[in-house]
């Protein structure tokens, strides 16, 4: 089958998967014994008959569950994810508000992980067993084992509070109110509006949370790059290349690395999706108004529409990244392209 045909099939498959996910989510969320009214109204209004009647009607809570589910699916098909019980906003609008901050942070983290992780992994492979390899192991271990709620507080304490090298929590200086809203990504918006003060401030604010959130991914990329490259470096064609008298740099970076990248790309794609959905702790410590906090509050309040909306969004992000990873295999490996 051609690549285009393969892609088309993969994209079509997303639809039944979404329906399956919504069904499971709907059943799971509704199995918890919470009266949605306690989320929609405040505590004192729960015995106000008029308010209760109006809310029940407005949110369709008087309808049987299967009907509520079908209504949800019908609305979803039209791009309507329902209205959050808690914020009383369309879930789509809420996600539009919160997602850009998370994407900016995830991109910053991925960039950090790649810039340091790839070279570190390569060095560790080439210098297998030597000092650099051990350093990379330590860096990875720290990244994989430090919880962000601790490391986040520590880096803030040292680099913000004690040394004052980097700014504190938030996306931008507390006396600035952010660039004009275009995409919601502060860096992009401030470039588009030539607002350089905001650009500098948001770039600096991005550093600490990106490091904290990206460290785990850095560890992952370093270790995968190392082991994958080590494997490739032991293959016959590398020996041939060396035998031809090629420079070591050419052998490693041009002959070996390309083949070693495939598992790294797999990890990267999934890691990026993970960075978007798993930034809750980092967002809390750094007062970062992202989608992670929204997701947690939706779960705590059992805000069904918001829970379903965020989970669906994350599921779709994972699916899309899986497809992107598949495509990139083809770019790196001509054999896959030809299949």
């Amino acid at each position, binding site marked *: 089958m051609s690549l285009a045909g393969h892609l088309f099939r993969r994209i079509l498959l997303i639809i039944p998967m979404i329906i399956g996910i919504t069904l499971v989510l709907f059943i799971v969320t509704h199995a918890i*014994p919470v009266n949605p009214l306690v989320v929609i109204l*405040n505590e004192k209004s729960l015995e106000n008959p008029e*308010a209760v009647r109006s809310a029940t009607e407005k949110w369709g809570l008087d309808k049987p569950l299967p009907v509520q589910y079908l209504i949800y699916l019908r609305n979803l098909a039209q791009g309507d994810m329902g209205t959050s019980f808690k914020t009383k906003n369309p879930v789509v609008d809420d996600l539009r508000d919160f997602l850009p901050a998370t994407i900016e942070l995830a991109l910053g983290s991925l960039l950090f992980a790649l810039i*340091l992780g790839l070279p570190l992994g390569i060095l560790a492979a080439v210098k297998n067993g030597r000092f650099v390899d051990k350093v990379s192991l330590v860096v990875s271990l720290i990244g994989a084992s430090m919880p962000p709620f601790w490391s986040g507080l520590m880096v*803030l304490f040292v680099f913000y509070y004690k040394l004052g090298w*980097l700014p504190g929590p*938030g996306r931008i200086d507390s006396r600035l109110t952010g660039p004009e809203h275009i995409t919601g990504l502060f860096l992009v918006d401030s470039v588009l509006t030539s607002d350089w003060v905001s650009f500098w401030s948001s770039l600096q604010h991005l550093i600490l949370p990106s490091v904290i959130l990206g460290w785990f991914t850095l560890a992952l990329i370093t270790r995968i790059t190392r082991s994958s490259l080590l494997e490739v470096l032991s293959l016959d064609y590398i020996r041939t290349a060396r035998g031809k008298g090629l420079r070591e740099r050419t052998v490693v970076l041009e002959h070996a690395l390309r083949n070693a990248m495939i598992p790294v790309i797999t990890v990267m794609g999934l890691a990026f999706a993970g960075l978007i959905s798993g930034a809750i702790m980092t967002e809390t410590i750094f007062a970062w*108004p992202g989608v992670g906090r*929204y997701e947690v509050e939706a779960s705590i309040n*059992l805000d069904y529409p918001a829970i379903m909306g965020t989970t669906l969004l994350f599921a779709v992000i994972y699916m899309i990244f899986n497809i992107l990873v598949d495509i990139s295999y083809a770019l790196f490996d001509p054999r896959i392209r030809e299949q």
Partner: protein
Amino acid sequence: MKVYRLMLFVMLAALLLGSLSACTPPAAAPAAPAATQAQPAAGETAAPAAPAEDKTLVMAMNMDDAVTFDPAIAGETTNLFVHNTAYDQLVEIKPENLGKIEPKVADSWTFSDDLKTFTFKLHPGIKFASGNELTAEDVRFTYMRIFNVKGPGSTNIEMLESVEVVDPLTVKFTLTASTPQFLAVAANPSLGIEDSKLVKEHGGTDATDADKTDKAKDWLDRNSAGSGPYVMTNWAPKSEIVFEANPNYWRGKPYFDKVIVKHVSDPTTSLQMIQRGDVDMIRSLDVDLVEQAQADPNLQVVIGTSLDQNYLAMTSNPEISEPLSKPTVRKAIAYAIDYDGIIQAILRGYGTRAPSIIPVGLPGVDATQAIQRDVAKSKELLKEAGYENGFEVNLHYGSNPTRETIAAKLKADLAEAGITVNLVPMEQSVYLSEMRAQKLPMAFGGWTPDYLDVTMWTHFFSFPDTSIAMRMWYDSPKTQEIATKIESEMDEAKRVDLTKQWQAQVMEDMPFLMLYQLQTITVLNKDIKGYAFHPVYFFNLVDLSK
């Protein structure tokens, strides 16, 4: 070999780039704390000739509860502060005297003997921030919109029958029942007068079907339509609220040109931010960090007694818990609790306690009458009720770190009297659902007032069709009789007397008891003046200056 040097170089370059972008101080880089604190002092001496003086106030506040700022739908705590800042109410209750109703938009008022009709004379010439004039029609629109949208805001004015515009500066409210607390209700920040023209322009309506047709929420979430000292010009959820001074403010232009309220949920972080000069005040600090804040000579720490309280409620229904349905057993529990231990050890002294459920700070409440721990008496009462060998009971609560610690303490305290308590922590929404379903034997919950009147407690904790009493099956004719009298009495001295009677009766039945009432710890830069704590809306932003 060169390859690896190249690698090292790339990594170093990346690191360097990162720290460089951090170190080059562009316009907005954080200054060292010492420098920041020195600036305002210099500005103060040169006040008249300082046009470039920064009149922006930045405040850190946990605004996790904020979901909407439409006065008709909001029912949380943060919105009370916002609505008090951006809107003016008919009357107000100032921090200096919580028992006194003072004029705000209304210059004066009268009420009928049956307390069912209230007429307000409005202050002439008040302008909204938009420039529109504030008239009786705006008052009518505001109340009818909130009533008809049927959201949380409508609960406070359930007794509204009609609002009538007598003339442009006179408005008459007719109520379905006698309501002595109506003036206190009218001081609720969310009943601030809305600019009816502006709200209608953005889809607002006061029609009877407003719960379906009103579309002003989107706009009111990010803007305000009031006549208050500041105008809300933006709200970025989980991030910040921006206020700008209202140039038309009828009581004089406020000191600050701009106020940015930053959402910071981590308390340690907020303290670091004020110490680094990134914010000028913290609305509420954790008790664990008070000493650290007090040790900083650049900060002032102000303690205010809030009316936020945490209570223990016990069911009166024998089908849910046979022992708890007996008042003697409930009293035994009241004597078994180590209240001072909770306040001193867990709240580090930043708490207080009232004798019944009505908090300290309201007329007629005397903290010295509160029950003190007496385990021997507790055991005696248990024996009298036939439970000398103790019994087992479940304690339910919406989990958070403070409640977990206190629940564990309650378990230990009651164990000394021979009662075995099983802790059942729940998510707050699950807890509320179960409580509302009237299923809980013993509940540990919280209560925050919307308006400053004793009926905020005597009503909701007495009648079997209201929140707390219903949920715990408390149905005492004596308590209800006193509560009914309070609701038709306007004379302050008589109300105080009735309040005392109500407390005594509740302490006799012991369906609920107050565990503690929290104190609010506010931290400000030492050059900020005018702060006074208010238990409903936190503080008046317009009072602050440098």
